[in-house]
């Protein structure tokens, strides 16, 4: 095993651990604000995995959008909602055991199949001019999905206003 590969493994498991710890925090904290902070840790861990896998662009986007925008929005929503800051909520309900079992089952099935799959490994390394290529693809092959997303965002925007206005 080359040092390069060892480093990749070490980085992958470190980042994976961070993502997992954050996720456990997010679902186990009784204070909803702390749960949201756990989510940030988890998002950073996932971004780290992208960096280890040399998908820098996706990693940066993950940090900018998920850590920078979405969690901040969640925090604002919590702080601006009366009663949510003081009280604690419980992530437990009567179905938690059944849900946990089903989730484990799904995980086991996915993990078994993932380990047994012969993944197509890309023959060439990711080139350094990735971002221009992504931009070009968005404007050519993926131009229709790109436009569909813009329509989707507009619908979401209108919907949010309809729900929120007095």
């Amino acid at each position, binding site marked *: 095993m080359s040092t390069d590969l060892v480093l990749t493994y070490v980085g992958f498991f470190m980042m994976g651990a961070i993502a997992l710890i954050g996720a456990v925090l997010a679902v186990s904290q009784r204070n909803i604000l702390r749960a949201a902070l756990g989510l940030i840790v988890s998002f950073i861990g996932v971004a780290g995995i992208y960096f280890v896998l040399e998908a820098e662009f996706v990693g940066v986007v993950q940090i900018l959008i998920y850590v920078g925008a979405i969690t901040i929005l969640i925090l604002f929503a919590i702080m601006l909602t009366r009663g949510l800051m003081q009280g604690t909520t419980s992530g437990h309900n009567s179905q938690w055991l059944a849900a946990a079992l089903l989730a484990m089952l799904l995980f086991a*099935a*996915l993990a078994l*199949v*993932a380990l*047994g*799959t012969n*993944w*197509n490994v890309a023959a060439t390394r990711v080139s350094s001019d990735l971002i*221009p290529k992504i931009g*070009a693809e968005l*404007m*050519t*092959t*993926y*131009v*229709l*999905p790109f436009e*569909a*997303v813009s*329509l*989707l965002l*507009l*619908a*979401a925007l*209108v*919907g949010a206003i*309809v*729900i929120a206005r007095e």
Partner: protein
Amino acid sequence: MSLSVPDLNLRIIAPVLIVAISALVVLLGELVTSSAQKRGLGYASLVGLLAAGGAAMGLWDAHAVAFREMVRADNFGVFLTLTILAGAVLCILLSFDFTRAHRIETGEYYALILFSVTGMLLMVTAADLIIIFLALELLSLPLYILAAFKREDERSLEAGLKYFLLGAFSSAFFLYGIALVYGATGTTNLARIAASAPSEMLLIGAGLLLVGFAFKVALVPFHWWTPDVYEGAPTTITAFMSVAVKAAAFGAFLRAFLVALPALAMDWRVVLAIIAVLTMTLGNVAALLQANIKRMLAYSSIAHAGYILIALVAMGGAGVSAALFYLLAYTLTNLGAFGAVIALGEGERERLNVSDYGGLARMQPLLAAMLTVFMLSLAGFPPFAGFVGKFLIFGAAVQNGWAWLAVVGVLNSLVSVYFYLRPVVAMYMSEPVEGWGAPRVAPLVALALVLALIGVIALGVFPAPAIALAAGGLGR
């Protein structure tokens, strides 16, 4: 860097574009209209939908792909496009007076319906999992809002929140499925997935896609949201959701499984057959127990999803055309049934309990007769559209070696007769209930009911042209 522009064949997505543009026009129109003029926005929506229908008819026999095989125009897609548009037109006709009576008459109401229709049309035209996912979200998001549109009504808010949370959850499964399918095959294009070697990973991906589709069309065990959402949402929206979402999601469901995953058919046919049995049985049995007519129709819509699933299990040309015909028949019939419920409302009050229908045959003989026809069609009585639809689906199942599934379907239809006839019996046999005046039916609601009625009878008596149009249109 030079860009090679893809084949921007706008004609292929013309119906989608026209509806999207109408949505934007209505949204802008909201700004410049007074509250008395909101009706005009409804008429504008109707014009947009009809224009889209015209554009869709122009795509008949076009057989083309565009945008690097992201979308495909085939007769399968055109048939479903027209079905969805018919559903949307009837829904808007029913909405004019309903929204005024319930004080939800705004431009956003119509714009959100049009956004949702845009997603639906894109979904049945999609030839790529990415487009299917985005279309699924585009059709769902406006519906979450519309379900909660009556904001002073707690049930409506509850419906919107439940639908949103569970819908987002199921979308995550769907997206995970797409990722795994991509990992297994290296593509998201339906035709190219079919060309790659099947693997266990592809099977797991297909399973997660199934969860996403099953949630949208309300198959057991992913149906839990349906009764609460259908009951809480404004009735016009319930009517729209119960038919158009099914047509769109089943369209993509059929296309994804029949075009991209036929190699795995041995595996998924058995699973889908079991789900179909559970869905039909639970839907019909639970509908027996409902006193609220919206909840009853919600469980009935679950049962109908089970019948349509039989057509997917049957596969082949017969299965596809049976599913298409059934979706059209179900769209007209169910909108008719909900339309009659809406027509019988009085201001903000609605006749939600079966007992509220007592004695209506004497006060409103025409309306009572219409509701009877729609209920009989839902139950699958000849000579109405529902009968022909069930006949085609069970016929396709028998033809392709799934006779036992057809038998389960027929038994379920028999059970369903009981609850479909309960409001009918109340209308003709019971005494009128106190506190209800004779309903006055608004002209546009009457128009919608008559259109649905003509469709239900025409499809039942002369099914041949529609069957011919539904046959063999799935492009690969």
